[in-house]
């Protein structure tokens, strides 16, 4: 491991990569602060830039920096104007905004910055310990197990992503996989489902789809509902960034607990930063003393520190399945996976053996990113907060323009832009009807690998027999079925009970 850390240090500390970390964190913070733009949209917009850099470590470092920056920026807008830019910082606004209204905005931002820093750093240490161990196990996996593991990952995402609507999420996942089958596959040299259109010969573009699924609907939502980007700044004066000794003492155990809990939640596919932050908040409120509980929701520093450290640790945790198994657990890591594939890197257990510099550089740059966010943003916060005042009349055309640009640069083909607009409208309608979109993109990205591994095991075992012959594959597939069936079964029972009907089935 020491050797790896040294490789990482030497890669991450090159001038380009340092610039990437700083630039990524700054861009992420800036855009993350704009209410209504989540990390997925930001990363989707940044991907063409990252891909054209060409060097996979630099690209991944840049995107990871953007990711942390976005989460950090999101917490700033939650605290200052009660408009969380990111779902995972909604819990931050519970206690952050009351603090800001009491005129303690500076203190709230400091607590948030310190907890984020601690959460991210502890997460990075845990990642360093967990990932190599998991990768060693994963090296024993066979294509059959990979296939089963991806099925488990996809069903976990379907089970946890939707708001209790598992079938919808599942349908979206399958639809994503179906879209991945369009075009010419690697295994069979024949085009499939192209309907004779040349433009579909190479399949749908991943960046186009990512933009259409996340960036475009979010921008359209901002247009449709001006309240979403309203910047009603109350007393935005930020002063006195210091926190007292008592407060520091109060938040230290909270940060410790929530960093570890958040990390573990982040590792699970489908869970991720949003769930980690809400759960962290709830857990800390439950174990706090009676008078501290009273403070929660009214400006408790503990209530602010808990979701902040949890969501940052969870972001780091979500890199574990991505880097070791090559299976993304969230929409954001799915987009990162797509970017890596575009750069000819296949994440998975071999990554640590074949290209250790990428793996370790990313981990080292996580530390760096955290340090930079802390030292760069703490003194700059009052100035950065001014960006919240950018008028939406200028902002929205720019967001739309960048989504168009992203799709165009990738393919250099203006048909791609029409596909983008078409899918963007579809995605917006799907979002109206409460269909989750992240599973679709994850399904799309994993679809091709899923089919490749499936076909390989079919060929090796001359038929579907591999499921029965490999107990581990069987076990994983059973787990996948349980993951999908259990929540809908429980929801049905709960509903039956709520309606006063005895559950007969």
């Amino acid at each position: 491991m020491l050797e790896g850390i040294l490789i990482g240090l030497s890669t991450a500390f090159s001038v380009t990569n340092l610039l990437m970390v700083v630039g990524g964190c700054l861009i992420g913070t800036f855009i993350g602060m704009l209410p209504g733009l989540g990390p997925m949209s930001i990363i989707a917009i940044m991907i063409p830039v990252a891909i054209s850099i060409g060097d996979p470590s630099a690209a991944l470092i840049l995107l990871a920096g953007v990711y942390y920056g976005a989460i950090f920026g999101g917490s700033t807008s939650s605290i200052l104007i009660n408009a969380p830019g990111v779902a995972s910082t909604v819990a931050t606004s519970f206690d952050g905004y009351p603090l800001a209204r009491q005129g303690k905005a500076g203190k709230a931002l400091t607590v948030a910055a310190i907890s984020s820093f601690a959460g991210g750093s502890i997460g990075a240490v845990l990642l360093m310990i967990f990932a190599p161990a998991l990768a060693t196990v994963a090296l024993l996996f066979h294509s059959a197990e990979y296939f089963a593991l991806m099925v488990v990952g996809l069903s976990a995402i379907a089970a946890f992503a939707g708001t209790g609507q598992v079938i919808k999420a599942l349908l979206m996942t399958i639809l994503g996989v179906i879209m991945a089958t369009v075009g010419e596959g690697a295994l069979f040299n024949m085009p499939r489902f192209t309907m004779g259109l040349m433009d579909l010969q190479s399949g749908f573009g991943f960046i186009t789809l990512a933009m259409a699924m996340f960036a475009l609907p979010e921008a359209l939502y901002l247009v449709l509902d001006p309240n979403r980007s309203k910047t009603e700044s109350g007393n935005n004066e930020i002063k006195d960034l210091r926190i007292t000794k008592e407060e520091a003492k109060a938040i230290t155990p909270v940060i410790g607990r929530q960093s570890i809990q958040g990390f573990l939640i982040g590792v699970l596919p489908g869970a991720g930063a949003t769930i980690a932050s809400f759960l962290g908040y709830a857990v800390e409120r439950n174990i706090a003393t009676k008078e501290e509980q009273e403070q929660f929701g009214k400006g408790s520093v503990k209530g602010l520190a808990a979701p902040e450290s949890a969501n940052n640790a969870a972001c780091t945790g979500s890199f574990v399945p991505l880097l070791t198994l090559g299976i993304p657990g969230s929409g954001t890591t799915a987009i990162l996976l797509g970017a890596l594939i575009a750069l000819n890197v296949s994440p998975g257990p071999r990554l640590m053996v074949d290209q250790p510099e990428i793996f370790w550089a990313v981990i080292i740059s996580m530390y760096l990113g955290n340090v930079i966010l802390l030292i760069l943003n703490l003194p700059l916060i009052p100035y950065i907060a001014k960006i919240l005042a950018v008028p939406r009349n200028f902002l929205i055309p720019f967001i739309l323009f960048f989504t168009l640009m992203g799709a165009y640069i990738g393919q250099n083909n203006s048909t791609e832009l029409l596909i983008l607009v078409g899918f963007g409208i579809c995605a917006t309608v799907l979002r109206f009807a409460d269909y989750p979109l992240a599973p679709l993109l994850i399904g799309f990205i994993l679809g091709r690998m899923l089919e490749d591994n499936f076909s390989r095991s079919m060929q090796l075992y001359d038929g579907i027999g591999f499921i029965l012959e490999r107990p581990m594959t069987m076990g994983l597939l059973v787990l996948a079925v349980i993951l999908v069936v259990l929540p809908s079964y429980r929801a049905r029972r709960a509903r039956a009970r709520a309606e006063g009907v005895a559950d007969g089935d």
Partner: protein
Amino acid sequence: MALDRWIAMIILLICLAYGYAAFFTMDEALAPFMRRNPIWPSTFPKILSVMAIICSLLILLGFEKSSGEPKPSEINYRRLTDYKLGQAIALLGLMVAYALLLRPAGFLLSTFGFLFIGSFILGERKYIVMALASAIAAGVVWYLVDRVLGIFLSPMPVFMANGG
């Protein structure tokens, strides 16, 4: 019928067409030696289409009730006309126009127009600021993409470009 079930029906139709292609038309072109393979190009799509059809039927038949209450933060599509629907549609139209004009009109002109008209649609009327912001943005982005990243973007309209 609620919107989510309409969508389920549309997806069902798409999947039926997909499944039809996978089950009946795709394998015709398959070479005889490939038919001995345990896996055909249509194998995986067949499985997918069956699963997708089952899922969309479950939603269509109302097996899984939607949560009912729309979340306050989300947009309620039943009252879509209460929102700025006109602006959204105009912007989408503008994006299509941009896509069609990008090649013939060149990057600089179409981008300038897109940003200018975009903010106009949203109700901005400070023309000088708009023109300045759009012009600077178009120039800077073109410089970054074409010169720094090295991805070719034809800057000028077709009739002014030499050879390109």
